[in-house]
């Protein structure tokens, strides 16, 4: 802390708590209460970064979230480092480490600075124009663009911090704890409303809390003193929940809002252990009051971007709040009265103010008169024509404006300065209002967009709504809040406010210089380096819509979303095209208002909580027996059980051989199960499946295929008739929830007359499926009294038996082609029955198999898997499953679509088998099938849907969908791969046991 830049200020900064921090490798000091920006400024550091395109030196410009330049990399830990942090928002803590981002090798000497001299070659749309051709060069361009444009670095290791989400509900949400928000909170609370008050800073009070002039008074007290009493009052109010360090990120429809609270970022690193770093509030508010205030505009003039050029309001805040002088030789440049408050603060703190340059002809308001009386030099009707100083401003050149304000006249006067405080008026923070869908209107008097129409229960007050003078802010906030909350009287109805009133207004969007525009650099968007020239160029090149101009020039496309740039961009477009600004419309502000970390967005949903997963009752057994798992929907299904370091291929070959030769067991618990009851249950099945169900007897099972109304296969499964009006339907694992919804939909909306009730029982039953030639012997060992003869218990039938107290539903159905039994028990007995089967099967070397072997076994039999061999474009006819379409039924879901002109085309893709000429060659699933690979463009005929090596057949087999496949049986085709072309022959879809003999063991 050098050069006498610190002013004694005990109110907001704790000078007894000295904190050390490191900026670009240099150890520096600040105090508790400082932001990183105020601490840097107190060390006489303005230059903190380089601009994006021209690599011009840039300094701290603001004191808030609108900061375009002071964007730093915080921390140097691979996991905790955070890019793009605004120095103006982060509270200083002991041990903070930070670095400049967009410069190499250092902020003081930046190679990219050469771009500044090349700038005539880098106009608007430069990237679009230069890097377009040839297309094949793009990868090379991208490499260099990324390297030279590099904003911050992402952390390379997993974020170790904890984040949290919380729901909140309130009557009134107030966003912004400045004077208008506070008074609205008090009025709402006095009316017994539950209020949630959010403030993004650490303290309530906004800018009035550090206001130190003697002109504004509330109820005859100094305004800041009056406000402090109000804050005390609010802090003790039980109706008001206050969340500080909490910024509103997004305002969605129906008053659903997201806010982020910083809980530990202001603490020294050691104090953060085991604490939640940030919390995301998901807020549902009955009413919302936006009191987010306004941000000051810069002015647009030649070389307006040098370090040391700052917003006047920021210069004031650094003095009055942080006790930091931004310079020792100050000049103020303004077009309005508010900068005169900065003049008073400079004066009061004993800081040298060399001059005020004001583009207006004069002003006689109370505050200007007071400044005049202090003997401060004011240059009326003057503008800044140029500035000097490469890494820090040292001079401004001022000139008189002509009558129209579009040129300069007279002699150039040079003034010394190391800090130039600029003010171009104020812009209401309407971002949240527009995010919520609100429409703005243009106020010609103040050249601002203000909230107009909204569909939501919301109100904007204070300077967020366009009131800038204290009496307007207070009186209108009180009046509007009362009306919004339908309150007759408040305790503030007789409030007495005194303040200076602005009388003279003048605004020039682009200030003239003695140099022609083409030779100047009047910056609009400091972060993206776009100038007024770029806007004019875009207009000359024919861009009209403000959204297009924005993208072409990249104005407003930085991380600050153009908080400072957008109004000037609009103003210059309006002036150049002779349009009213109100007719141009504004660009859209999108959430988040300020950037959110990914950690905050995902909250606790990381690691094993990333997604919900479902386990079968036998899951532990699979884990204990070394199963590998695959995700099927949300289920974890046993995929295969490798033994002694087997590969997946080896394990699957072993498992499937065992199932064919002796016995295998599969956990089929994940299949969807729907219990169907009611007197119309049979009719219902007739309507939802393609085949006929009328003649199904109690105790029998039937396979069914379900279509969408468009005729495409939707799901399949076996349904069992348990009783006269009682069925158990099974669905695919992944389709269970969708089938249930679809059936419910038809029952409730199309066929409410049917007496049918559906209950999802997927989770209620566990299923062990035992298959293979020895399956009958194993089942017999467990259920000794059960008659398993083919006469009593044939294929596609069902029996209900007891094992001790356990009710077992046994279905003799097969998805492998082998004799097989599916034992269904209540879920809690799942593991018991599984282990019972394993024990009984020991002498037959019963082998647990996973989904991969199941897929192989069924593929050998040509059984489809919906979702693997079908993709929502396959009809039953395409699948060569014509046999399952009932000819007799008048109607079923999808029937009419089966003879649409498109579905009866013969050249549709159809399911076929494929055999590779080399039996050891296994096709890749998804591989394309062609006839001729030389004729370009290559005509794609279809693709492989399932492919395996069959240990029983000792050759590779595959299913595929193929254009006109039915006609191509026996044809030779090609499957081109990256390194070879595989020759295949189209075959039947059934590869094994075409006569279905194995089904009987």
């Amino acid at each position, binding site marked *: 802390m050098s050069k006498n830049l610190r002013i004694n200020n005990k109110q907001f900064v704790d000078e007894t708590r000295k904190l050390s921090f490191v900026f670009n490798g240099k150890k520096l000091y600040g105090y508790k209460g400082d932001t990183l920006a105020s601490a840097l400024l107190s060390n006489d550091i303005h230059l903190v970064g380089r601009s994006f395109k021209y690599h011009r030196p840039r300094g701290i410009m603001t004191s808030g979230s609108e900061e375009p330049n002071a964007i730093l990399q915080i921390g140097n830990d691979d996991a905790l480092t955070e890019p793009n942090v605004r120095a103006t928002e982060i509270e200083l803590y002991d041990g903070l480490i930070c670095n400049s981002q967009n410069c190499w090798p250092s902020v003081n000497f930046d190679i990219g600075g050469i771009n500044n001299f090349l700038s005539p070659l880098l106009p608007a749309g430069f990237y679009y124009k230069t890097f377009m051709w040839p297309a094949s060069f793009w990868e090379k361009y991208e490499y260099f663009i990324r390297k030279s444009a590099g904003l911050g670095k992402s952390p390379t290791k997993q974020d170790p911090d904890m984040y949290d989400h919380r729901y909140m509900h309130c009557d009134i949400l107030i966003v912004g704890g400045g004077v208008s928000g506070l008074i609205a909170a008090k009025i709402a609370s006095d009316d017994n409303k539950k209020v949630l008050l959010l403030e993004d800073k650490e303290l309530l009070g906004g800018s009035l809390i550090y206001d130190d002039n003697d002109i504004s008074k509330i109820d005859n007290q100094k305004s800041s003193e009056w406000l402090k009493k109000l804050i005390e009052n609010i802090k003790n109010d039980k109706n008001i929940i206050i969340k500080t360090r909490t910024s509103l990120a997004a305002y*969605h*429809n*129906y008053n*659903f809002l997201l806010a982020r609270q910083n809980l530990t970022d202001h603490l020294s690193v050691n104090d953060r252990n085991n604490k939640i770093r940030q919390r995301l509030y998901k807020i*549902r508010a009955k009413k919302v009051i936006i009191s987010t205030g306004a941000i000051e505009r810069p002015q647009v003039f030649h070389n307006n971007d040098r370090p040391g050029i700052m917003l006047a309001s920021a210069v004031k805040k650094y003095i009055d709040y942080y006790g930091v002088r931004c310079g020792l030789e100050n000049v103020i440049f303004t077009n309005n009265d508010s900068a005169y408050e900065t003049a008073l603060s400079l004066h009061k703190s004993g800081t040298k103010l060399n001059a005020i340059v004001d583009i207006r002809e004069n002003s006689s308001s109370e505050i200007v008169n007071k400044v005049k009386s202090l003997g401060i030099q004011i240059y009326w009707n003057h503008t800044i024509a140029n500035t000097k100083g490469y890494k820090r401003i040292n001079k401004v050149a001022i000139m008189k404006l002509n009558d129209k304000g579009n040129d300069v006249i007279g002699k150039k006067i040079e003034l010394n300065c190391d800090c130039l405080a600029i003010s171009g008026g104020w812009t209401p923070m309407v971002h949240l209002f527009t995010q919520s*869908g609100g429409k703005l209107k243009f106020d010609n008097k103040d050249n601002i967009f203000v909230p107009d129409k909204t*569909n939501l229960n919301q109100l904007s007050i204070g300077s967020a709504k366009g009131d800038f003078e204290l009496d307007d802010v207070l009186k209108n906030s009180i009046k509007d809040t009362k009306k919004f909350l339908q309150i007759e009287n408040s305790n503030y109805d007789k409030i007495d406010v005194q303040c200076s009133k602005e009388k003279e207004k003048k605004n020039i969007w682009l200030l003239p210089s003695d140099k022609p525009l083409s030779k100047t650099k009047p910056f609009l968007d400091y972060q993206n380096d776009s100038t007024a020239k770029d806007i004019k160029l875009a207009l000359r090149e024919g861009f009209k819509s403000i959204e297009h101009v924005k993208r072409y020039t990249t104005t407003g496309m930085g991380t600050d979303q153009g908080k400072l740039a957008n109004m000037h961009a609009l103003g210059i477009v309006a002036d150049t095209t002779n349009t009213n600004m109100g007719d141009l419309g504004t660009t859209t502000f999108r959430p988040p208002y300020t950037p959110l970390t990914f950690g905050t967005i995902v909250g606790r949903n990381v690691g094993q909580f990333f997604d919900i997963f479902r386990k079968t009752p036998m899951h532990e057994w699979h884990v204990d027996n070394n199963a590998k798992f695959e995700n099927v929907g949300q289920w974890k299904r046993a995929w295969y059980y490798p033994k002694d370091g087997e590969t997946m291929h080896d394990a699957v070959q072993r498992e499937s051989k065992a199932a064919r030769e002796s016995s295998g067991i599969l956990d089929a618990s994940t299949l969807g199960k729907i219990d169907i009851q009611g007197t119309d249950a049979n009719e219902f099945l007739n309507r939802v499946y393609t085949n006929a169900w009328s003649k199904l007897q109690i105790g029998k099972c039937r396979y069914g295929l379900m279509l969408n*109304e*468009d005729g495409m296969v939707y799901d399949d499964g076996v349904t069992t008739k348990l009783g006269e009006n009682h069925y158990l339907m099974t669905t695919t694992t992944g389709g269970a929830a969708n089938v249930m*919804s679809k059936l*419910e*939909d038809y029952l*409730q*909306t*199309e066929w*409410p007359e049917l007496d049918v009730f559906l209950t999802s029982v997927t989770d209620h039953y566990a299923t062990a499926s035992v298959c293979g030639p020895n399956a009958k012997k194993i089942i017999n060992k467990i259920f000794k009294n059960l008659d398993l003869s083919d006469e009593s218990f044939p294929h596609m039938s069902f029996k209900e038996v007891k094992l001790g107290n356990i009710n077992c539903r046994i279905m003799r159905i097969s998805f492998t082609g082998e004799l097989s039994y599916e034992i269904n028990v209540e879920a809690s007995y799942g593991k018991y029955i599984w282990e019972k089967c394993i024990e009984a099967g020991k002498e037959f070397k019963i082998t647990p198999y996973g989904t991969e072997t199941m897929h192989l076994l069924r593929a050998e039999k040509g059984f489809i898997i919906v979702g693997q061999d079908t993709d929502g474009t396959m009809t039953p006819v395409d699948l060569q499953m014509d046999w399952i379409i009932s000819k007799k039924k*008048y*109607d079923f879901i999808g*029937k*009419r*679509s089966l003879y*649409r*002109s498109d579905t009866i085309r013969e050249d549709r893709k159809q399911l076929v088998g494929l055999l590779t000429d080399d039996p050891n060659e296994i096709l890749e699933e998804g591989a394309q099938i062609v006839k001729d690979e030389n004729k370009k463009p290559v005509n794609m005929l279809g693709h492989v849907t399932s492919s395996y090596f069959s240990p029983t057949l000792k050759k590779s087999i595959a299913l595929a969908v193929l254009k006109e496949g039915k006609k191509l049986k026996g044809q030779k085709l090609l499957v081109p791969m990256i390194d070879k072309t595989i020759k295949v022959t189209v075959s039947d879809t059934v590869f094994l046991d075409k006569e279905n003999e194995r089904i009987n063991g």
Partner: protein
Amino acid sequence: MFLINCPYCGERDQSEFVSGGEAHIARPKQPTELNDDQWAEYLFMRKNIKGIQFERWNHAHGCRKWFNVARDTSNDKIEIIYKMGEQPPKL
């Protein structure tokens, strides 16, 4: 994120519901009587209007009931909610 007033459960967050598209498109009673164009009209054609649209919603993570919603697609405002089988109100 809407708030939807389920006629059976009351006001709930949108995340509990799924949308079922345009309402009042009855499945033809005799699909076999229709030609391809008429069937395609039922199957594929939806109005997708800007303004008040009648649509079906299902309280999927609640009572599982289907009901009708009149929603302004330009601002997502729900004008009225009424049960399945009821006629659309004049708005």
